[in-house]
């Protein structure tokens, strides 16, 4: 299903929960609505799922206007959409009863084969007879997803489906979400989890305080955030505010203690440098290279993130976060107190205008 949203707004009494939202969702990729709590993500999903009426604006589903739809057209549209709620809405009764609630409500036949297929897909095989409310958090969420999948909708609206779940459940659900998009469904996922967004997103829509701040391909939004808000939220590491200046024909961002060479059309005013932790090179001695920025400082901490190690390195009062591989970390004998050099290119510095 193709969805186009125009100037969508919602108010709660006097307060604007959403305003001026223009965006487009296409099938085949995971559309991630990213943003902090209270940004309006759930409200947007509820409007898309026709659970609430928009206060303003228009939504087009496959080109058909929501505001022009009759009650029965809206019902058939809801039947093409599936909603997974943040806190699982399960009824008293067994897993099977919950799973079949949708078809039962609508007097649809459902075969044993279909129910066991969706249970299997969601890692709940053979759990039919169990009391649904006694399932673990992750199982409840997977049951919700199974209940929606049984009705085979074209549109999946997922409201923070992995919040408060154990890592294994998160992995299972993320895999299921990726599969749905791969099968050509339209998937809209609301999350405040950046790692999840990095992992799943084809497109990212960044919401803040009810407004759409940035939208685009996931890599674009994550690597070149348009505002400090998004940078702070999506690349919380290495954001250095300072003043732009021209020195010896080069543009630098000076925070008073570090002068970072940058590529910028502007040569004055306040700005923030954003440097991704994986773009910084670590060495024991200064290295001769084309990279324009090199700083020396002691390692403060070494954290094991699983796939990579994260170093905290203090250079002139600013603590950089740097990702390196486990092997390099071992080979260089990196531990708190060791003095190292950090090197990065001027082109790796993403500049955000301030004020």
């Amino acid at each position: 299903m193709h969805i186009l949203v125009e100037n969508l707004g919602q108010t709660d009494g006097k307060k604007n929960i959403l305003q001026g939202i223009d965006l487009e969702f296409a099938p085949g990729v995971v559309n991630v609505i990213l943003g902090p709590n209270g940004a309006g993500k759930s409200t947007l999903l509820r409007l898309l799922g026709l659970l609430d009426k928009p206060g303003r604006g228009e939504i087009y589903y496959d080109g058909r206007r929501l505001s022009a739809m009759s009650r029965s057209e809206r019902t058939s549209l809801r039947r093409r959409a599936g909603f997974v709620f943040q806190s699982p809405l399960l009824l008293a009764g067994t897993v099977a009863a919950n799973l079949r609630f949708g078809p039962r409500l609508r007097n649809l036949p459902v075969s044993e084969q279909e129910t066991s297929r969706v249970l299997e897909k969601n890692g709940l095989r053979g759990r039919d007879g169990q009391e649904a409310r006694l399932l673990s958090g992750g199982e409840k969420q997977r049951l919700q997803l199974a209940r929606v999948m049984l009705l085979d909708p074209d549109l999946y609206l997922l409201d923070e489906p992995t919040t408060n779940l154990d890592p294994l459940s998160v992995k299972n659900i993320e895999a299921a979400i990726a599969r749905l998009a791969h099968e050509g469904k339209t998937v809209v996922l609301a999350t405040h989890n950046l790692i999840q967004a990095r992992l799943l997103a084809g497109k990212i829509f960044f919401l803040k305080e009810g407004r759409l701040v940035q939208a685009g391909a996931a890599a674009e939004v994550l690597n070149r955030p348009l505002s400090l808000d998004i940078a702070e939220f999506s690349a919380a590491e290495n954001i250095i505010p300072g003043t732009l200046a021209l020195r010896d024909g080069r543009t630098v961002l000076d925070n008073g203690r570090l002068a970072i060479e940058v590529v910028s059309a502007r040569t004055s005013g306040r700005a923030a440098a954003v440097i991704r932790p994986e773009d910084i090179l670590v060495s024991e001695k200064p290295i001769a290279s084309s990279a324009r920025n090199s700083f020396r400082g002691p390692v403060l901490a070494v954290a094991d993130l699983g796939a990579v190690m994260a170093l905290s390195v203090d250079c002139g009062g600013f603590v950089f976060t740097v990702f390196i591989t486990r092997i390099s970390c071992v080979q260089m004998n990196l531990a708190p107190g060791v003095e190292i050099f950090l090197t990065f290119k001027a082109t790796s510095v993403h500049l955000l205008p301030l004020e």
Partner: protein
Amino acid sequence: MNYILEGLKQGAALLLPPSSEILQIVALSLAVSGAATLLASLAAIPASLFLVLKEFRGKRFVVGLVNTAMAVPAVLIGLLVYGMVNRRGPLGPLGLLFTPGAMIIAQALLAFPLITALSLAALKGVARDARDLALSLGANRRQLAAAVIHQGRFAFLTAIIAGFSRVIGETGMTLMVGGNIKGQTRVLTTAISLETMKGNFEIGIALGIVLLLAALAVNVALQGLQGK
């Protein structure tokens, strides 16, 4: 103290076995209050569903009105119904005054705001989730109402029990519009009130025991339904 114990003893004796007159009074009490509760519920359940599911201008005012209506004294409802059904009233030609019909109308009016308000309060917790779930699974209007009623069934039952308990124990209003006519409109509460005032304390106690048992039995039966 002795005289209360004596009354209890004599009252209990009167019930072993109960006279046909007592049985008739019990039957009429249950029939009138049962019919009134049923009528009130038939209006109160859709009303509370509407109020909990529908957003409209002035909703808070209407909900406030229902809550306030719970506090209207029964005797005022008696006065209103009396005014409607007495010979000169707009419903006078129906000849309802001093009939079980008038008692049913009055008791239903008394129970309606109570059942509506209690249902509404209890539904608030479940209705939104039930609505979201049913809508998201593609329910139409009828299926949506069915799902919310099903999820709210305990809320409704509790409210209905409270409504029935309120009306079967009501005296003054029932007396005003029913008249406490022996064999026709005499119910447990009006009979207790009359017999006690006549000085037949033991009969009052006997009927009181029956009233208590009748109310208890209906409550237990309805709560049995709730357990299912």
